[in-house]
């Protein structure tokens, strides 16, 4: 019994000695506040710079999640090593507490943080990219430690937990570039002059004010027959992915203006089935 009391007494004193005092708690809070401010200021400045960087916009914003990870990890490292200065016993205790915390419900948050680190370093997508994850499509506006924020075309802000990157396929439409491939479908009556329609759609595409064409960013116009209509599909790069829908709309509007002038009409109503396959 006396041995048991001695052991308990020793462990209690070890735990007590590991517990931070008031000064240490203040230092911890100050460290976290400074880390937060550094992240916020860096985030603010880099976003300002990126908006003026034109086609290098996404290259600049790519640094933001890295800075977040480095600053927060450094802050935690500083807190653990400088303030707690753990010995082997404290480390064992901390590991035990940490394991218990993960077991008691923090595992999702931990998975999110690990996911955030993976996203920051592996870069399956970056801030500014257009992505599709878990059925959500939109522009990545922030990659935090816990979640990625995406703004949908309908202006809804969706938070996607970072651990999703381990479980689901993520599709980045532009892979870190400012330009992005856009597919524009025009459905015409099967009796129409398909060659003329393709010429018109091609001209509408390459004369658009949003288009970007280069040897590595070519355009194509494809024709496919369906039982009750023909589909003219234009594939071209928009110069800035933020203009994706404006590009599509402008090309469609101008193409239809000319198609109508040339006597090319849409298919009879009720027969068009939209096919999103990326052929």
């Amino acid at each position, binding site marked *: 019994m006396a041995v048991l009391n001695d052991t308990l007494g020793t462990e209690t004193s070890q735990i007590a000695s590991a517990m931070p005092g008031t000064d240490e708690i203040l230092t911890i809070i100050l460290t976290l506040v400074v880390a937060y*401010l550094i992240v*916020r*200021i860096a985030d*603010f*400045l880099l976003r*300002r*710079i990126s908006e*003026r*960087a*034109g*086609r290098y916009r996404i290259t600049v914003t790519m640094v933001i999640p890295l800075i977040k990870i480095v600053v927060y990890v450094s802050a935690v490292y500083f807190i653990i090593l400088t303030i707690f200065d753990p010995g082997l016993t404290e480390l064992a205790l901390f590991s035990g507490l940490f394991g218990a915390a993960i077991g008691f419900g923090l595992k999702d948050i931990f998975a999110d943080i690990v996911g955030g680190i993976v996203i920051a370093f592996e870069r399956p997508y970056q801030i500014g990219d257009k992505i599709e994850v878990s059925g959500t499509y939109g522009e990545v506006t922030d990659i935090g430690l816990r979640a990625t924020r995406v703004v949908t075309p309908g202006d809804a802000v969706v938070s996607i937990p970072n651990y999703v990157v381990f479980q689901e396929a993520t599709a980045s439409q532009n892979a870190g570039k*400012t*330009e992005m491939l856009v597919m524009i479908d025009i459905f015409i009556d099967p009796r129409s002059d398909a060659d003329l329609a393709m010429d*018109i759609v091609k*001209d*509408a595409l*390459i*004369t658009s*004010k*949003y288009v*970007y*064409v*280069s*040897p590595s960013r070519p*355009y194509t116009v494809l024709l496919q027959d369906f039982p009750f209509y023909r589909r003219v599909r234009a594939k071209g790069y928009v*110069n*800035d992915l933020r*203009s994706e829908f*404006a590009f599509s709309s*402008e090309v469609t509007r*101008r*193409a239809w*203006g*000319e198609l109508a002038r040339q006597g090319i009409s849409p298919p009879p109503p009720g027969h068009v089935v939209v096919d999103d396959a990326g052929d």
Partner: protein
Amino acid sequence: MGSVPDFAADLTHPILYEEEWDRITAGIDAFEEGRPSHIAVISEPFAGQDVLMKGILRRNPERVIHLPFFSIVKNKDFLAQISGRRDIVVMEHCHFLATRKIGGFAMLDAFLDLLSTSDRLFITQWNRFTWSYLTATRHIDTFFPVVIDIPEINSKTLKNLILSRYTDEIEFVAEEPPHENSLQNGRHREVKFSIFQKDFSLTLPRIFGSETGRNGISGVHQGNPEDTAFDRIIRIADGNYGVAERIWERSLDGNTLRVADIPEIPCTINLDINESFLLTAILSMESVSMVDLAEIAGPEIHLKQTLFRLTNQGLVNENKGYFEIKPESLSCVKGYLRRIRMVW
């Protein structure tokens, strides 16, 4: 006072773009021996490419059919002029053969059809931005085995060209601009932000969109004032001969040029997509009429309002109903449109 020299008038004179001139004459001489190797001369607005075209006309007056275009070509009548026994066709401002609109490539296609089957040598001159666009979208470069890209000139060439116009001596005054407070000189800016609803401000170096343009950094030559002046002019002009000439004229006061009087040109552009598109059209066509611009703009762009805003920002000049990029703004406009991927 000086006068603009006609370098092409005397073909023994060391001409502006001598190397390019040699390539063209070599192409013409080689043509006599075999199949035509068509030539495309590519240049920015105001670069002085007319010197080369005039030179060709003077060198081969009996052989040349001359076709200069001054507005968008709307019918195929120009093709009828390519007839007879003359075996060289010199076509200036070929960027007017294509219009950035649906169906706007018909004249270009008709010309390329003729060129593809002709025995004549075609020497064509294009705006660099139109050329890049047509190369990307229509592979026009495949029709021209010889592409001569007019280069930027250096300050030594500029000095020789400009000073050769004057009989009186020009006095250069090495007067440095007054040293401004480095925090107010346009290379720094104050950034305001708020944290926890409290406002803060930081003074930071300007990284993008410098108030003084791409070349707005000091970098003044520390040698004699003459070299300093021409270094500075060519830096501000981005190597463009016409722009450098304009800056020279603006800076010269009688027979004196003070280095401090050479104006650094402000460069802050913020345009919407329609304004950027119209600016691209003007840059790509060099000098374009309201009627032609209306065709390119289509019904979606309020042409008069947009042109007013472009003019008001000091980017565009109107001259007798024709719009062109203001020479002093050329470097800034190019940089901006490249950054937003409107020109390639």
